[in-house]
């Protein structure tokens, strides 16, 4: 699986960076939900993962269309608010036609009890109501996605279902029509659906949203205008059948209008001042909503209260709400959240990862732990340019190859995570359809590393450090200062490499330093990845369902030293085979070709002989705590925020 791009629905997505300069904000840009489990920082990634699904799904759907191989799924047209229950999960991989993005394993149990107050715990206060608009902080979506629905959403197993739309338009089911380089998308809104104030949800809202996003007074849109700017017109005013006319092919169209805002409410404010005037934290009851639970009060850093949105339950879900009220309770960190769960303060605890499992188990919460493999992977990015500058091409290649064998990932797993993860050699998420399972991970082999270095001419100096061409194998290892486990990992790496004569000088720096943009920081700031002032840096990438997101990480033209310096090829890898694979992935809509290209890329990535300067360490685990009395909670590692199906949640008496 590729890395979670910052942009889920843009045509030029990038990778989700776990690590961001601005503790929260850079993370927000990249979306990193799991990071928050370590310190309130990058909670938005969950949200971004959700968004990235859009890119994947739509891309695949279009591929199906172009390839003509996708067959209509029985669940491709779904009932809004009810994710389609498929009989079988679609196979991962295979030909385009075998990939069905709408069939899901998810099936909600019938609600067995109603009433009471549901309390959900989460670490970290959301920043604003405007998720995926002026903000992309994952907690914002955890908090407000249950209040404000979009046209479509993803299930926990990376499938699509309609929210305010009753269909998931694809080429296969006739919902998408491609005409040359243009396309039309037919959207059927849920018949009779109403906003919380009783106003009907119609195509007028869709039309308004598109114009609103494109308004010249819009400032600070985190979601950008990608996709909206490609819509030339929308038909269906006043009805529930809308047709979006795109002036060009826009693959991630299923990521648009998420959320969909009510026209009649947004019209109450000028676009420029909308954040100050609408959905204001102190006047949330004035807001107009579409989701199952709508907020009534927000005490920052404490809680948000919700009540059922009567209109949703009557006109969209057509059922009674399982809870009389919902509360989202905020904790300062995961430790206190675990303590709060132990003390029965909450029914469900969100946003944990492998680093909290030991604490949960020591608190005797074993039965409440729900964990799944996540797409986020911890890795060491080596700066290939700094290696070649020091040791030349051959020396750098040998060193990088040796490093792959020299890193003892299992020792890192045992020492740093307490054995809570599974070491990995491939950054691609194993559940992704383009994951190549045929690769065998290389084994840790110190002797082989030694022989490679010897063969390349590296010799130990009087201080015991390797030298080549008069340059020492002494490197700057960087991580955020507030991520102690990363500093510990780098120190452990230093210990592992010392017998070979390689030394890592570990440096912790402020989060803002690591990923500050080209013009945002002095060019010689140590540990800044954009300027390449590091030898090795540890952080985590969020894998996304979009293979194209790898393009911005590994294609040589996205070396940050080049162009507008916005590329994310921090490792400065310049490999013509990788470039060729990435070009195919980016330019093709044929799933088979993409899968093939991704297989080529993965072979390069996992074979130490190719000296790929990124070393995957392990995939993160997405963890939540849930009371045994809770039902229909479907944890997910990658698809959506953990409250994605909150309308189905219920609790035994």
């Amino acid at each position: 699986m590729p890395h979670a791009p910052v942009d889920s629905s843009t045509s030029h997505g990038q990778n989700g960076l776990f690590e961001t300069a601005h503790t929260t904000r850079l993370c927000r840009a990249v979306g990193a939900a799991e990071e928050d489990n370590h310190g309130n920082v990058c909670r938005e990634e969950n949200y971004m993962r959700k968004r990235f699904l859009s890119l994947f799904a739509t891309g695949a759907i279009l591929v199906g269309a172009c390839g003509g191989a996708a067959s209509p799924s029985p669940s491709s047209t779904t009932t809004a608010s009810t994710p389609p229950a498929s009989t079988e999960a679609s196979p991962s991989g295979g030909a385009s036609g075998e990939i069905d993005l709408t069939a899901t394993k998810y099936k909600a149990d019938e609600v067995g009890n109603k009433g009471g107050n549901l309390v959900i715990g989460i670490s970290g206060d959301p920043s604003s109501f405007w998720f995926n608009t002026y903000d992309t902080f994952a907690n914002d979506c955890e908090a407000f996605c249950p209040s404000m629905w979009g046209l479509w959403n993803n299930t926990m197993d990376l499938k699509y279902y309609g929210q305010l739309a009753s269909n998931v338009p694809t080429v296969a089911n006739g919902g998408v029509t491609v005409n040359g380089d243009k396309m039309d998308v037919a959207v059927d809104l849920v018949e009779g659906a109403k906003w919380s104030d009783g106003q009907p949800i119609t195509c007028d809202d869709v039309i308004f949203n598109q114009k609103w996003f494109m308004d010249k007074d819009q400032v600070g849109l985190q979601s950008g205008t990608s996709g909206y700017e490609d819509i030339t017109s929308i038909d269906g005013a006043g009805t529930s059948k809308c047709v979006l006319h795109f002036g060009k092919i826009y693959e991630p169209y299923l990521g648009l209008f998420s959320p969909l805002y009510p026209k009649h409410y947004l019209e109450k404010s000028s676009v420029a001042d909308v954040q100050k005037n609408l959905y204001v934290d102190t006047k949330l009851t004035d807001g107009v909503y579409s989701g199952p639970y709508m907020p009534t009060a927000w005490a920052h850093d404490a809680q948000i209260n919700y009540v059922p949105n009567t209109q949703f339950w009557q006109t969209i879900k057509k059922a009674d709400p399982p809870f009389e009220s919902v509360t989202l309770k905020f904790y300062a960190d995961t430790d206190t959240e675990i303590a709060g769960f132990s003390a029965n303060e909450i029914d469900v605890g969100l946003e944990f990862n492998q680093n909290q499992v030991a604490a949960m188990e020591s608190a005797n919460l074993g039965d409440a732990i729900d964990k799944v493999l996540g797409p986020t992977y911890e890795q060491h990015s080596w700066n290939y340019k700094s290696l070649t500058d020091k040791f030349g091409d051959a020396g750098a290649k040998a060193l990088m190859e040796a490093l792959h064998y020299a890193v003892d990932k299992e020792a890192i797993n045992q020492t740093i995570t307490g054995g809570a993860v599974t070491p990995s050699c491939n950054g691609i998420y194993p559940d992704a359809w383009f994951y190549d399972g045929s690769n065998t991970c290389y084994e840790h082999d110190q002797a082989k590393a030694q022989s490679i270095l010897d063969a390349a001419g590296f010799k130990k100096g009087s201080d015991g450090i390797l030298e080549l061409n008069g340059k020492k194998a002494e490197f700057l290892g960087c991580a955020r200062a507030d991520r102690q486990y990363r500093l510990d990992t780098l120190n452990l790496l230093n210990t592992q490499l010392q017998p070979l004569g390689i030394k890592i000088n570990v440096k912790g720096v402020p989060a803002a330093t690591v990923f500050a943009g080209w013009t945002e920081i002095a060019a010689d700031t140590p540990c800044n990845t954009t300027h390449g002032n590091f030898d090795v840096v540890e952080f985590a990438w969020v894998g996304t369902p979009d293979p194209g997101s790898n393009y911005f990480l590994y294609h040589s033209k996205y070396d940050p030293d080049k162009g507008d310096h916005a590329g994310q090829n921090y490792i400065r890898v310049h490999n013509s085979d990788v470039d060729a694979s990435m070009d195919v992935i980016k330019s093709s809509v044929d799933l088979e070709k993409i899968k093939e290209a991704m297989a080529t890329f993965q072979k390069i990535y996992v074979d130490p002989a190719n000296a790929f300067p990124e070393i995957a360490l392990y995939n993160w685990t997405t963890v939540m705590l849930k009371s045994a009395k809770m039902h229909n909670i479907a944890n997910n590692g990658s698809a959506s925020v953990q409250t994605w199906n909150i309308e189905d949640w219920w609790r035994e008496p």
Partner: protein
Amino acid sequence: MIRYIVRRLIGTIPTLFVVSLLIYSILQLAPGGPEQRFEQNPKVTPAQIAAFKHRWGLDQPIPVQYCRWIGVCNPDGEGLGVFISNKGLPNFLPGFLGGGDNGVLHGDLGFSSSTGSSVASLIGQRVLPTAILAGVSLLVWVLLALLTGVIAAVRRYGKLDTAITVFNYVGFSFPTFWLGLMLIVVFAAQLRILPASGMWDTRTVPIFGSAEYWAFLGKKPDVAIIDLVRHLILPVVTLVFVNIAGDSRFIRAAMIDSLNQDFVRTARAKGVAERGVIFRHALRNALLPVVTNVALELPFLFAGAIATETIFSWPGMGLAYISAVRQFDYPVLMGILVITALVVVLANLLADILYAIVDPRISYG
């Protein structure tokens, strides 16, 4: 005295000006900024980031930004016109005299760059929780410090003095975050007798400060107060335990000094009861330096005892400050820091006034 207070209050203006200028400059010069939220986000174009910076005035030189923030400059003005309000008069004048309506001078702390909320309302929500936590902590801590300090001084070099000294140093040695977490683990997670965090019980009590809360307090004062006290116990214990040492040792030293003075010997010689000697004569004199200490501790507590509020999710100023730092939310940070600076200045003034009350020899006339 009144003339002195007025003089001191007037003196706070340049102090606050310099402090705010320094804080503003440091914040601006630090790496990062509100626009960093867009870093690594390919959805946002450089033009959109530029528009964002322009909207928030971040594209202006720091002096201009500060000038706008403080309210001397008009954000709508250009060139020398920045000093003129939209009504054509100097912008720094009060609005009703034709001045502007932006900036601190006009009571406008601006809007949060991350949420769009009014900074004043955001800070307003946080003041009472912090005041409650700080007030209770300060009360308990000063009383305990007085008690232990006096006892240690009276029984100096005895076993009780040693025990108090050990207690003080142990408390002083504990990092706040560690002690807080340990208390949570023991009393909330293991024993389950106290809440893990927060200020009220989410399941039974309405949001503190809301209309529902005050109605609830009116209807069930016992439940509301007991709930609040239960939530206060762990953070207050944390703050008191960690901070009592300084004041306790300070009082002990001042008391020992005082007990060795001639007037104490005279009091004893005159047959004054020992309790009277200690509390009426020695302690009153010993309090003088203590007043300074306590007054200087006030702003620290007002700023929210940041670590304690964060650990216990106490929704006060400290937690707001941390959130603002994480989000590079300059308007909120400036609001909190300048108010804290104001409290520091006022606390110093209070200390001076208390001097005069505690020690009749001091006069500001």
